[in-house]
């Protein structure tokens, strides 16, 4: 399988073909059963040859029930990055692979790709830090894991979670789980119109259980304690 062919068209049958599907602006490739390292080499080779088709696409990889180590996922991501392709998601039925993929901030649910790519846009706030906007309610089962800041125009429902390296702004009610400054950044803030979360913290500072704030509020960190600024009419 490793042979490199000189003629792209005639040698097609010998080479491995991959199933590619488009979901919104993301291309999904299915990586069939087989030794991971071999499949990975084949895939990268395949993409290289079809550079015109792939361009600098966003790619989601369906790896089936494979149990992948974090390093194996990193190999895939880095191999793709070399070809300017951005790995955004890994779909799998293995819990281990799923959690490893999440640790890289990759999406693992097909519906996340469908929803997020539709309504997600990238902005660059002051200082060049990255942020993403979701212009719809995050419903139960949605997980947003992002190294920058996250803005939601809608609610964060119970069973949904946001884990952001930066700040979290919600134009709606936080009922689910929100973590800002997940890497320990105490300068991160959480703002929302209404707050009654299942779980919420900034860096390592947890909000008190059963907190309910019915007015717009900004929560920040001061000397490792949470500080609430509530707007009242």
């Amino acid at each position: 399988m490793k042979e490199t062919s000189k003629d792209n068209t005639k040698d097609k049958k010998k080479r491995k073909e991959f199933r590619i599907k488009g979901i919104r602006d993301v291309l999904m490739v299915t990586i069939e059963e087989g030794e991971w390292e071999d499949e990975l080499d084949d895939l990268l080779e395949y993409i290289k040859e079809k550079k015109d088709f792939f361009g600098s696409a966003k790619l989601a990889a369906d790896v089936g029930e494979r149990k992948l180590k974090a390093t194996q996922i990193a190999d895939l991501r880095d191999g793709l990055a070399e070809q300017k392709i951005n790995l955004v998601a890994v779909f799998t039925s293995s819990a281990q692979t799923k959690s490893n993929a999440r640790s890289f901030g990759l999406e693992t649910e097909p519906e996340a790709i469908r929803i997020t790519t539709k309504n997600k846009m990238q902005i660059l706030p002051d200082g060049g830090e990255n942020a993403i906007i979701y212009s719809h309610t995050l419903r139960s089962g949605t997980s947003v894991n992002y190294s920058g800041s996250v803005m939601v125009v809608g609610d964060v429902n119970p069973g949904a979670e946001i884990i952001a390296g930066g700040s979290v702004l919600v134009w709606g009610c936080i009922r689910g789980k929100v973590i800002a400054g997940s890497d320990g950044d105490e300068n991160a803030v959480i703002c929302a119109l209404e707050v009654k979360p299942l779980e919420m913290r900034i860096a390592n500072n947890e909000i008190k259980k059963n907190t309910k704030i019915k007015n717009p509020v900004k929560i920040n960190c001061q000397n490792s304690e949470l500080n609430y600024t509530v707007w009242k009419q």
Partner: protein
Amino acid sequence: MSAHIITITSGKGGVGKTTATANISVGLAEMGKKVTCIDSDIGLRNLDVVLGLENRIVYDLVDVVEGRCKVNQAMIRDKRFENLFLIPAAQTRDKNAITPKEMVTLCESIREEMDFILIDSPAGIEGGFKNAIAPADEAIVITNPDVSAVRDADRIIGLIEAAEKGPARLILNRVNPEMVKRGDMMESDDVLELLAIKLLGIVPDDDNVLISTNKGQPVVLNEKSRAGQAFKNIAERLNGKEVPFLDINAKDDFMKRLSRVFGKEN
């Protein structure tokens, strides 16, 4: 004629999908509409029982898909309404016996002959749900006013949106006004605020539902039942008519009771 295909789903089990499918189908049939309901809960079929048609099954959904019979051979005609049909699920197979694509093909093959096709979805968010939602023009989410059912409804609404079948409409089932008053049950408004989709109907908790289910006589045919009335209203709304929502707090309408005393009802 081209049918409107509606999938009834919930995420959580036991909230009333099958009861709702049966009653709405009968409600629409009673209005003279040509209706087929499909039980897609393969392996756990019971729409046939609720409709009282279990002893008439010869062929089922899987038989059609696998080519053992024609689709109209598997359509059981209801004994009360000649314009109501049921395609039952197979009991001895599982959800993997059919694919979403096959469901679409099957629904499209009868779409031209029907006004409505109602699909009773199995519980859960896996293959069975995907089969049920694939052919849908519209989805109805049914839930109970309890925290776990509402959480699952929220999840399923997200999946319906992701499948581009949204926005779904909501039926809030088994609302017990006494318990709401005591604060032991979620208020309808709280549920609606959280789920943020359009309300199609509120069905009060009613013992008649269970009684009629066991008899195979959908409660919608019972004129005295408030749940039956609620299902009838839902059928009317699906047919495009504006019907005001039942006052869930009125245990029994005073005027109605009065007219019953004077024998004006029935």
